[in-house]
């Protein structure tokens, strides 16, 4: 019916373009180009195309205006326009989110115009909680990143692509293991002693797991709510909210876009372990200390050093033998998007494949995902949407954990990985040769997660009251994790040099294969309904809604186990022995129910106020404590809109913001108000033939008063845009006070009480900080660039926490950062007997041990001399610098990210069987040394040796600056592409973690494993292409 209203031509276009767009496009081009010759003289018809400077794609809907007149047209679907203008007239091309461009009409009748995108335009829509706001009128502190910026990074894990891009967001990548390489993300630092992870919302679904695996090509934008604007998410939002919006179809021709990435990854840094000569000498020294005979003679040590007998006296670097130089990874994304007036669609499929860094290793991680959505305009007032998303993460790993494997790589260097006859050596002990441990000889752990989401949504404008509408959605998610752990014994060999025989050694700790399979299934439903009212009258703008939401979740899991498989040939449960088989299972439920809303009011886009609230209820807490009210208010004053500023031309926009809100955090184990008893395999082997039995264990002592943590957050901000958009800045200062922090009183309650302590609302923490973002950009004819820098400082301070009453003031946690630990202050190394005798010391201190400060002055070094220090591995300062440059068809992007005021403790040690870094051994204390860098090396994992006590000596500065992302790309010119019916083709070369400048040097500065036994972070080199047609 409606189509009658459209001109026939348009109808024709609409029908045709679906079938075959290209002939039509070419036809239009011909029409546009050819007749332009020989047209009128004085007031000529100017024809042209408007394209994007960077992508060279035509832009539809650009307004082209003859300056000083009302004469204007807007560009068609190919970016073409036709306008009457005289020579010397200026044409102004303007389009939302692009820089205005002025071009003077010359002699020619064709005038092609390129526009460069504005990256911080005021008109840009920013996704906020349950809605979008114009950047110009936003009142809260919201950091955003667009699809464009995200795509520069070759990291296959979305959480690793965020570093340095969003001010106030701290990302720390602790491991590079495929599938387990999520960065931990903190928004404005740590402000609770409990769970600090932000709430992640993907397309309106809260608490989405696996968001790190969304393909960047499918993401429209990411917004981070840092202040009271998060109050709309109520009891879950105190750690900040990350809003991910994925792409949907838009009206226009169907676009098929294919992106391919092929990358090579390398470990960023692995420790340089000691050679046989160095470690052999150290072993002799250790043995001598215990009055044991030496392991190696001087002659043997010399053979190690000079390599004259590599068969009998080898020096093996196990890291080099086990880790590959290069590891492949790849990623593909194919998307079809488009739509007409009434139906818009988006279908996208992604695949990624990541291998492990081990030679012959079985580590591999693959993801598959499908995201599809349809939006239909049923009639003028009704819109419905339907989303189906599915994803599979499929990881395969060897049976030994990576921590264990990396620990075992510190095997003594004089043992070869393989004996000359090719048999694997026995490694450290128990057959733990890491070269075998990384392969499928150990069995296999298959960890597969399937994610499924169905979402239906509607949006209705109520015709009788203008501006009134109802919308809502229903979502069903079903996530299932399958874990299949097949363990196999393996055989490695020792070589008896006396009898010249190989002695088989069993590995894996079992005699026969065994299998454990488990399934964990989580389902949830989310129902959201909203009544909204949006109205402009004169200078007033009202934007308000009230909504209700209900979420229900259910989890159940079960597992089965059989041992003593007759053969490893079939890795299925049936093949295991019936004796000793096990089965287990459990379930849990949760519910959440809330009402929330917003009142947004703006006057002349000058005075702005937003009030958000949520009345949130959660099944985690007891009745009477289930509901809480979380309000947030934000105001902004666009001071540049005041009369005063009309004459200050260099200021385009200046906005002052302030917000205050109360938000909750309910990340805590449920049902802590009940006395529950759990039954498990914790009984006792009674009976004449002992076997397993059940045991009952009392859960936490009930806390009937448990409720959420409360965050009171205050934010003051200023946004400015100067010099015609050349310079933009944002500064935010904030103060957050988290109270009712859910913590246990285990530092204060004596353990003889035997209490299994519940979480109680006891802590108070204050966070203060500042975030600055400055951007500058400029475009010339063919060249444009943008520089954006951001920096944030945040420091937490514990105002109150339950702690031991009877400790010295300098050990109290109060007044310190969250996570601040007690350390002895190392003030040197004892070099002489005289010094040792004259100084306060730990019992058992020898010359060569660390010398500590006697803080309490009692002449002894004891636990009383520990001092609480604000040195944690959560950085206080984070910063990022983004550079982008476009020249013709080339563009360059670089992102530096860094941190400062961060420390990591490394408990470095070595012992008879465990090698360590060569630098540590070479610089260890040896008797008589007056200037060794290190003291007598601690022996064990536990911090018990005099020099291995927790002290500032082993606390390392983890500051760094690293080139997180670098990308160089080239777009094939449109003129070439049109001949092959391709609308866009871009090649790029990019990389991740390419350069690191840091003080740590020995491990990756983002490491958190204090023994250095972790899967190293990756450096990635990637080649990609993006093809659109």
């Amino acid at each position: 019916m409606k189509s009658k209203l459209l001109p026939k031509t348009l109808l024709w276009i609409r029908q045709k373009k679906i079938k075959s767009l290209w002939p039509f496009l070419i036809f239009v081009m011909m029409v546009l180009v050819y007749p332009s010759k020989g047209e009128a003289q004085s007031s000529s018809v100017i024809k042209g195309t408007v394209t994007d400077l960077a992508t060279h794609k035509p832009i539809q809907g650009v307004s082209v205006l003859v300056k000083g007149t009302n004469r204007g047209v807007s560009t068609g679907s190919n970016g073409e326009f036709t306008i009457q203008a005289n020579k010397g007239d200026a044409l102004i091309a303007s389009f939302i989110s692009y820089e205005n461009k002025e071009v003077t009409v010359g002699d020619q009748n064709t005038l092609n115009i390129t526009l460069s995108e504005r990256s911080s335009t005021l008109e840009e829509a920013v996704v906020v909680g349950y809605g979008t706001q114009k950047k110009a009128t936003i009142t809260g502190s919201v950091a955003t990143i667009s699809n464009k910026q995200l795509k520069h990074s070759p990291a296959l894990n979305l959480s690793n692509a965020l570093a340095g891009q969003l001010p106030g967001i701290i990302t720390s990548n602790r491991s590079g293991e495929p599938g387990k390489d999520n960065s931990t993300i903190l928004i404005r630092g740590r402000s609770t002693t409990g769970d600090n992870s932000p709430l992640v919302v993907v397309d309106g679904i809260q608490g989405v797991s696996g968001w790190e695996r969304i393909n960047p090509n499918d993401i429209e934008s990411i917004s981070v709510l840092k202040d009271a604007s998060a109050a709309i998410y109520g009891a879950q939002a105190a750690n900040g909210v990350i809003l991910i919006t994925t792409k949907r179809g838009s009206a226009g021709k169907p676009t098929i876009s294919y992106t391919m990435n092929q990358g090579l990854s390398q470990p960023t840094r692995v420790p340089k372990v000691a050679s046989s000569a160095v470690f052999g000498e150290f072993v002799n020294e250790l043995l001598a200390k215990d009055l044991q005979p030496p392991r190696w003679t001087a002659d043997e040590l010399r053979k190690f050093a000079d390599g004259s007998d590599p068969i009998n006296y080898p020096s093996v670097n196990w890291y080099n033998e086990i880790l590959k130089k290069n590891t492949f990874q790849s990623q593909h994304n194919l998307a079809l998007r488009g739509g007409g007036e009434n139906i818009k669609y988006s279908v996208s499929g992604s695949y990624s494949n990541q291998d492990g860094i081990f030679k012959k290793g079985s580590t591999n991680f693959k993801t598959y995902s499908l995201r599809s959505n349809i939006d239909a305009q049923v009639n003028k007032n009704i819109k419905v949407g339907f989303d189906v998303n599915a994803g599979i993460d499929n990881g395969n790993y060897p049976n030994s954990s990576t921590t264990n494997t990396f620990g075992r790589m510190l095997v003594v260097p004089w043992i070869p990985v393989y004996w000359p006859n090719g048999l694997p050596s026995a490694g450290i002990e128990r057959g733990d040769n890491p070269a075998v441990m990384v392969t499928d000889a150990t069995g296999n752990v298959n960890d597969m997660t399937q994610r499924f989401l169905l979402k239906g949504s509607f949006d209705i404008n109520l015709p009788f009251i203008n501006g009134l509408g109802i919308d809502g959605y229903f979502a069903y998610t079903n996530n299932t994790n399958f874990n299949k752990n097949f363990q196999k014994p393996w055989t490695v060999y020792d070589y008896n040099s006396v009898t010249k025989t190989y002695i088989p050694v069993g590995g894996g700790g079992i005699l026969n294969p065994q299998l454990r399979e488990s399934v964990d299934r989580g389902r949830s439903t989310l129902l959201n309904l909203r009544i909204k009212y949006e109205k402009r009258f004169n200078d007033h703008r009202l934007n308000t809604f009230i909504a209700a939401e209900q979420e229900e979740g259910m989890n159940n899991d079960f597992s089965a186990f059989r041992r003593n498989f007759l053969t490893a040939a079939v890795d299925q449960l049936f093949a295991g022995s019936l004796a000793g088989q096990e089965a287990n299972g459990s379930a849990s439920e949760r519910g959440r129910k809330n009402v929330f809303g917003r009142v947004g009011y703006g006057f002349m886009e000058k005075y702005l106020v937003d009030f958000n609230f949520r009345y949130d209820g959660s099944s985690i807490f007891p009745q009477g404590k289930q509901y809480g009210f979380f309000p947030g208010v934000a105001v902004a004053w666009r001071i540049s809109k005041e009369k005063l500023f009309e004459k200050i031309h260099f200021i385009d926009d200046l906005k002052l913001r302030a917000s205050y809100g109360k938000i909750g955090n309910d990340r805590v184990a449920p049902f802590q108000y009940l006395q529950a008893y759990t039954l498990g395999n914790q009984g006792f082997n009674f009976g004449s033939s002992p076997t397993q039995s059940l045991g009952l264990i009392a859960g936490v002592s009930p806390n009937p008063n448990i409720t959420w943590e409360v965050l009171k957050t205050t934010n003051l901000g200023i946004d400015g845009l100067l010099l015609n958009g050349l310079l933009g800045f944002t500064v935010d200062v904030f103060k957050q006070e988290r109270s009712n922090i859910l913590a246990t009183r285990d530092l204060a309650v004596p353990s003889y009480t035997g209490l299994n302590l519940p979480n109680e609302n006891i802590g108070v923490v204050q966070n203060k900080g500042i975030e600055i973002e400055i951007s500058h950009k400029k475009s010339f004819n063919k060249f444009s660039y943008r520089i954006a820098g951001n920096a944030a400082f945040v420091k937490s301070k514990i105002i109150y926490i339950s702690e031991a009453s009877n400790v010295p003031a300098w050990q109290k946690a109060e007044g310190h950062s969250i996570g601040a630990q007690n350390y002895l202050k190392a003030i040197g190394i004892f070099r002489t007997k005289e010094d040792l005798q004259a100084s306060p010391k730990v019992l058992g201190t020898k010359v060569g041990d660390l010398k500590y400060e006697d803080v309490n002055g009692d002449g002894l070094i004891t636990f009383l001399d520990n001092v609480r220090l604000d040195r944690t591995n959560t950085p206080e300062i984070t910063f990022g610098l983004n550079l982008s440059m476009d020249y013709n068809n080339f563009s360059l992007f670089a992102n530096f990210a860094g941190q400062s005021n961060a420390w990591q403790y490394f408990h470095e040690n070595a012992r008879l069987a465990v090698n360590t870094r060569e630098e540590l051994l070479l610089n260890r204390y040896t008797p008589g040394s007056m200037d060794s860098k290190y003291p007598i090396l601690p022996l064990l994992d536990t911090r018990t040796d005099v020099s291995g006590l927790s002290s500032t000596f082993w606390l390392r500065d983890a500051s760094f600056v690293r080139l997180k992302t670098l990308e160089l790309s080239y777009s094939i010119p449109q003129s070439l592409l049109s001949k092959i019916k391709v609308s866009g083709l871009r090649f790029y070369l990019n990389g991740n973690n390419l350069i690191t400048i840091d003080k740590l040097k020995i491990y990756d500065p983002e490491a958190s494993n204090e023994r250095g036994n972790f899967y190293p972070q990756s450096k990635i080199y990637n080649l990609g292409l993006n093809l659109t047609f």
Partner: protein
Amino acid sequence: MHYKNNLLNKTFSYLLIGIIIAFIGLISSCKKNILEKLPLNSYSEDLVWQDGNLIETFVNNTYRLVPHGFNYSMTNSLSTLTDENNGRANSSANIINAGNITPDALAALDYWNDPQRGFYKVITKANLFLSKIDNSPIDSALKKRMIGEMTFLRAYSYFRLISFYGGVPLITKPFGLTDDFSVPRNSYKECLDFVLQQLDKAAPLLPLKHTSVNMGRITKGAVLAIKSRALLYAASPLNNPTNDISKWQLAADAAKAVIDLNQYALYPDYKSLFLASTIYNSEIIWTRPFNRQLDIENAYVELSQYPNGYGGFAQVHPLQNIVDDYETLNGKLPKNDPSYDPQNPYVNRDPRFYASILYDGAPFKGREVETFLPKGQDSNEGSSQPWNATQTGYYQRKFLDETITNPGGTNIGSTPWTFIRYAEILLNYAEAKFNLGDEATCRDYLNKIRSRPSVNMPAVTESGAALLARLQNERRIELAFEDHRWFDVRRWKIAPIVLNVPGKRMAITKNPATGKKTYTVVEFQPRAFFDKNYLVPIPQYEIAKNPKLTQNPGY
């Protein structure tokens, strides 16, 4: 068009009304409040204390929590903290053996709250159980038995605690979250009196023997046996400085009470007495069974004792100090026996030496143990994991299930931990009788131990101080590595002598040409004992929480 628009508007209105109703319904929904959830993975408190089966699983878990001698992260730690064993590269053992233990690093001696060693965990469970059980409507026979078991386990835990720390806070009721937690220490006597009173309460509630499925539970005999040990410790010089003879009488009576039960007898074979294959044999009074193939409990006996050449980690190695205290077949200590040849030290020794210790040349699993240099397979020049070799020249054999090859993971034996066995009762009785002046009975009971068929050592004939020395050495040898030495050297107050001497090892060099071995005893490990070390310090983390807790003197 008009018609259609009307229809549309009508549909629309209905839709709208529907949505609004749904909306209101959602907000105020009362049908089934989705916030009313309950845990699906646990039982509520009311349910538990009404159900005999569930209560029994609660009791069973309490048994599991009782600290035993194998549960030491693979190092049999009490033996490494005395003159029995050396723990290789065991920093915390070295600190303790040097007399340098501090309240903030109890390490292997944290019997207070350590996850595997803490006795207060047992006490807490017993307190909770005993506060609930009286009102529980369960079968009375089961109730009676369980009260007996839990009463005993709590009493045993307190006895153990006071043997390490002296008096401790005597907690007998469960704490609530809002209670005042600062409790002072009770005296050693108050605690001991409580232990004895509770043992007396438990004994009549428990049977002399359990049915086959309940083997392993506390019996009346176990209660009386622990009472015997508690009274012996209480009568000993450390706790009885005035040598109050009546205390020795109580100790003698308590030991005799166990003997008079006529339930127990020495098991003929000293070596297999400890193994899973002979669990619940005639000598065992209370033992801790394991099934480590099915239920791993961090107690890897073979892994922590096998020589490196047999795939073991060998974290504990007997010291030359204890080897020197195994008599020769002549019933004399080697140093007193002229027939002893220091260059052929392992012949003609007490059979318990061969059962308890692996030495160079000991036949073991198809070959001889080689701790000699150079290139002995079980020395630090062996082919297999030489860094795990012994530092003393010996390996501990007691408790090993020698059928295990290549130990690790679940490939380990299930040797039970024997808390108390009949031989100790005989030794307790002998010691009490000696102190009561009845030397004949003392010798008689010592000789019962020595005449076990597999031991058959010459009878003891000494008297006076010499008899006391024989008595003490007999206990050292018979109960070696069984967590007795720590307490015995303290209560006898001989720790300043025996724990103040260096750890010794045996260096053996073999002439590759002639095959002749040379034996040299080497002092290799400085050790020290100070008066403060009679007691373990109260953990600093606990004192930090409670100013009323006083520290033991000297720490």
